């Protein structure tokens, strides 16, 4: 059995229910919100897809413009070819700013998950604190996010309450508001002590060098303004051409991700604190991460780089709902992850592209219209050609039968006999029965 299906089999029902219920709710909220916000959601998606495609087609000049504008704004730009380089750049910046033992607060960022930054910072002696509520829970529990937007979609409040009690965050309570207050009290002290704040980036505007972050908890604001140094990490493809693109993308992202008309907070970061300003960091750094993206851009899966990480494809995906993100065995999960992970790290990961019924719901909800099922099919093709996907039974026998009419008919006669032997179909379902008349005989005899 493949690891995905084994994970699904062993998943406890409470986790399965948490994932299913939250995903189904988000799917419905997305539909309600997008149809309320946009007169024609379909044309909004088309417009966003065109803009993101434009970005991919003009990535180099756009990113160079971003760098130039950031420089004018006082944001220091760093380039990282891969995860290792990104970790060492970020670690270097932290070492310049504070001694080991210092608190580093983190706002939610998939790019830092991708480069496994927390381990590197902890190994260097820093006290890294995740400040997004979900990420905070994940960190306390030595767990990993199971969703790119809602990291603890696999947990319920009872589990969170027990975890908080065990870690002296607060006394056991089943009230979500009280749990949130407990986390908030704990995190406030961390924000006061923090010397560096690390965040991701939702959009970086090439025209103006502004970094745009969206969130709902206020922790990103504190992470990017309270510490003396702010380090933002972004995948190189996260650039948007102009400020005029933001209204569409901000609404589409909030609607697709969480069914909101707008996120509670939207940050436009223009650079470090100005002399007359009351607060803000003294330094702002932007780490632009390649880590396989430029190779992916030149390859057959480039469309996946249009992604704005809304997670709508995870929520709607029946396969994701059965297993949660953990079943995919990669930071990026769901339909998006099943394409992005092998696109970034190579066809060695192509087997995960098999974890899909190819139903196409992902493409239907994608705010930038990525043809995910088509990309999954291409990955399967490449995986089979390069032997990173090996089916238990080769298809040559099927071809021999399906290209010869007489063999085909004889084999079909024998198909119902399959019920006599144990087979993977009948492990979960009754075998189909031949129902009524045989078509071929009927058609022949009526002529």
């Amino acid at each position, binding site marked *: 059995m493949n690891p995905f299906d084994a994970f699904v089999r062993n998943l406890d029902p409470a986790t399965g229910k948490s994932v299913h219920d939250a995903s189904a709710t988000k799917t419905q909220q997305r539909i309600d919100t997008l149809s309320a916000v946009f007169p024609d959601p379909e044309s909004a998606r088309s417009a966003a897809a065109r803009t993101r495609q434009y970005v991919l087609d003009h990535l180099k000049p756009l990113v160079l413009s971003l760098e130039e504008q950031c420089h004018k704004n006082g944001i220091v730009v760093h380039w990282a070819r891969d995860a290792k380089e990104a970790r060492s750049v970020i670690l270097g910046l932290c070492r310049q700013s504070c001694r080991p033992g210092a608190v580093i607060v983190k706002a939610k960022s998939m790019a830092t998950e991708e480069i496994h930054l927390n381990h590197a910072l902890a190994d260097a002696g820093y006290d890294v604190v995740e400040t997004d509520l979900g990420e905070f829970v994940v960190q306390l529990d030595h767990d990993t996010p199971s969703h790119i937007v809602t990291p603890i979609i696999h947990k319920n409040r009872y589990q969170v309450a027990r975890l908080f009690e065990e870690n002296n965050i607060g006394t056991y309570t089943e009230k979500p508001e009280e749990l949130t207050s407990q986390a908030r009290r704990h995190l406030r002290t961390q924000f006061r002590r923090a010397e560096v704040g690390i965040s991701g980036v939702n959009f970086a505007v090439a025209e103006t060098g502004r970094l745009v972050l969206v969130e709902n908890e206020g922790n990103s604001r504190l992470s990017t303004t309270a510490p003396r140094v702010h380090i933002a990490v972004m995948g190189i493809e996260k650039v948007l051409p102009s400020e005029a693109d933001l209204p569409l993308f901000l609404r589409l992202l909030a609607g697709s991700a969480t069914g909101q008309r707008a996120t509670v907070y939207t940050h436009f970061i223009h650079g470090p604190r100005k002399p007359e300003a009351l607060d803000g960091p003294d330094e702002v750094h932007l780490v632009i991460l390649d880590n396989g993206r430029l190779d992916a851009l030149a390859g057959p899966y480039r469309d996946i780089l249009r992604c704005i990480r809304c997670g709508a494809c995870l929520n709607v995906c029946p396969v994701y709902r059965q297993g949660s993100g953990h079943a995919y065995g990669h930071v990026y999960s769901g339909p998006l992850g099943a394409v992005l992970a092998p696109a970034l790290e190579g066809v060695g990961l192509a087997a995960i592209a098999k974890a899909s019924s190819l139903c196409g719901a992902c493409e239907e909800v994608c705010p930038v219209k990525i043809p995910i099922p088509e990309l999954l099919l291409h990955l399967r093709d490449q995986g089979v050609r390069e032997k990173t996907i090996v089916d238990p039974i080769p298809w040559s026998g099927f071809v021999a039968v399906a290209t010869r009419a007489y063999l085909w008919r004889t084999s079909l006669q024998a198909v119902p006999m399959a019920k006599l032997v144990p087979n993977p179909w009948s492990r979960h379902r009754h075998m189909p029965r031949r129902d009524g008349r045989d078509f071929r005989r*009927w058609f022949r005899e009526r002529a």
Partner: protein
Amino acid sequence: MMKVRLMLTCLCDAFYGEVGIATVKVLEHVGCQVHFDARQTCCGQPPFNAGDWKAAKQVAERCRSLFEGNDPVVTPSASCAAMVREGFKMLGVEPEVPVFELCQFLRNVAHVERWQALPNQRRVAFHRSCHGRMLGLGSTQEDLLRLVGNLEILPLNETEQCCGFGGAFSVTHGNTSKGIGQQKLSQIVASGATEVVGGDMGCLMHLQGLAERLGVPLQFSHVASVLGDAL
């Protein structure tokens, strides 16, 4: 009289002959002359979805050459129609076969506006198969069924959700497939329907096998059979 060529599909060939028979009756009822080429086998979708495109191409090429010509090819499956229309393109198997899913043909080509009533009242849930997305089927199948008297289509939640069949996926990812199917069955039961109608025997075979294993009392009917029952 319009000449149409029937593409039977492997499942109707192997198990569900009655669906093929109903398809012929329905097409004849709207004035078509139905041809069936007994040399037909499969469209090549199983190896195509599995990723063995070399194998898929051999089967698809044979299918394409068998259905060469301009007369419409009609099939009681959105899945097979999508393979022939979209999958063949991806495989580079050309020129295009003029293929139609049955309901799409009835609505858009034969312009069916009326249908007979069923002899007895039936209250059903309609399951949209995912390959209808690739064909842009939308509500075509339900729209057609709404023309049938004595047939009530009950509202079903989460209609965008797959049944979990997915061809070879149903055996390579059996536990996942089963879990998805159970979700679908529970939505169907919650709708109050005792019968499920769909346009693809793949979905229905999977759901029926699962319902029987789990002891869920439901009937499963192809849309062609429902249309045929009303004639």
